[in-house]
């Protein structure tokens, strides 16, 4: 019998709230920091964090959310050290402890890796191995960063963390689809392509050189292939025919896969050279377009799972999603045409999409309280 076999008191679930809030603090400051980089006037706390935009989004927000989600799944107290360490890393980064912050994020990634390995012991499946590889990517990238590498030099590893986490989860759900040897074979080839691209960048560190172009282009090609795999084998192609929440999630996923393809194509063709518009385009197609579409889609089931609050589906959920896609499209048009002005308006649109997402989710929780619904709506 697992501890998960008994109902968990709502109060216990709410004790997870401070951890999640640390993640959202990173999201809000990190977004403001990103806008400050694009010369939007921002409050000084955000403007001063301009150099921390990437780490706050990847380690501070996604790091906390993913490791908290994993801790809830594993159900052992020690696994909560991962979101806690990542949250403390954010607190340090924003309060003058910038030199220590990478080490706290590194600690968080190591605990996430251990938590995922404990899942692997319970369930020896390929998708759990993917989740463990993803956590390992977060560790490697963050270790290199803590040792002095620049963010743009480790961003490929951080992308590996997020992309492999999502890929692992989608692989798991693809088991609902008719069994296909081809699907598994292609998935293995694509995952190997991603990991080999990353690994090929490692030896260069010993020679004090930046990641080789082969690593970046290979990674881009693998991302493009992954988008094709997801479009072909993911359950979203089927669940999009359902109604309500299932359909909303499927549309988040399918639209996210389009951005995965775009980001992969840009990276495969233009590489990842910091300061160039293609760098901005590739990273934001992947992180805002692909990864945040996943966040928007899964928030209505992950928030209730983590916090035990009801978050009933509503048609208004589509508003932040449409805003996200439209603003990102604008940004990429700006990047492609060399118009910084258009790109930075796109960026502020995306920040508004994130704000709208938070407002919509919060108002869904409050609406359910008002109407007296006591339990999360599963359907």
């Amino acid at each position, binding site marked *: 019998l697992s501890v998960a076999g008994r109902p968990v008191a709502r109060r216990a679930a709410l004790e997870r709230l401070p951890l999640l809030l640390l993640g959202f603090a990173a999201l809000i400051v990190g977004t403001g920091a990103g806008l400050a980089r694009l010369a939007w006037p921002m409050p000084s706390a955000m403007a001063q964090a301009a150099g921390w935009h990437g780490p706050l989004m990847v380690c501070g927000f996604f790091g906390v959310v993913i490791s908290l989600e994993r801790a809830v*799944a594993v159900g052992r107290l020690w696994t909560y050290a991962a979101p806690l360490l990542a949250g403390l890393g954010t607190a340090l980064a924003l309060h003058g402890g910038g030199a220590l912050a990478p080490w706290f994020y590194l600690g968080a990634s190591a605990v996430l890796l251990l938590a995922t390995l404990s899942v692997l012991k319970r369930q020896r499946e390929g998708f*759990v191995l993917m989740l463990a590889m993803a956590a390992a990517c977060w560790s490697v990238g963050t270790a290199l960063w803590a040792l002095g590498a620049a963010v743009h030099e480790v961003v490929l590893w951080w992308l590996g963390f997020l992309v492999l986490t999502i890929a692992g989860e989608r692989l798991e759900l693809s088991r609902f689809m008719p069994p296909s040897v081809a699907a598994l074979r292609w998935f293995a080839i694509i995952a190997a392509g991603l990991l080999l691209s990353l690994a090929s960048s490692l030896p260069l560190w010993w020679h004090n050189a930046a990641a080789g172009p082969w690593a970046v282009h290979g990674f881009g090609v693998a991302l493009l292939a992954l988008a094709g795999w997801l479009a072909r084998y993911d359950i979203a192609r089927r669940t999009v025919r*359902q109604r309500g929440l299932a359909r909303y999630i499927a549309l988040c996923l399918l639209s996210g896969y389009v951005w995965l393809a775009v980001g992969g194509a840009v990276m495969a063709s233009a590489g990842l050279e910091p300061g160039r518009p293609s760098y901005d385009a590739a990273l934001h197609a992947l992180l805002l377009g692909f990864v945040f579409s996943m966040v928007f889609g899964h928030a209505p089931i992950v928030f209730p799972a983590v916090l035990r609050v009801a978050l009933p589906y509503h048609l208004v959920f589509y508003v932040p999603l449409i805003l996200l896609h439209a603003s990102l499209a604008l940004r990429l048009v700006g990047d492609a045409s060399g118009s910084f002005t258009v790109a930075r308006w796109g960026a502020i649109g995306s920040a508004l999409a994130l704000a709208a997402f938070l407002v919509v989710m919060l108002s869904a929780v409050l609406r359910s309280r008002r109407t007296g619904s006591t339990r999360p709506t*599963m359907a």
Partner: protein
Amino acid sequence: MTVVNEHMVRDALSRVVDPEAGVNIVDLGLVYGIDISPTRVQVCMTMTSAACPMTELIVDDIHEQLAAVLPPDVAIDVDLVWDPPWTPELMSQAARSIFGWQREH
């Protein structure tokens, strides 16, 4: 007095839906067994992923759905097991057709 039978329990469990798949846990093949005694209903079930944070929520939902149909003096027990592991073959024909399986599978 309400007589508790397996049909009634299964019916309540089929109101517990996996939100992403939009399919209930009975059709997904997650319910391994139902054991009914005069004082207790025990449900043995699995999940498709041990890395999924939704487990607690689904177990809670099972408790609520069963509590709504069972007499108050009947205890509810949900056993979560990982052995034997879930396989797609455990899905009902209804669930399979949603995901595009051919009939002969």
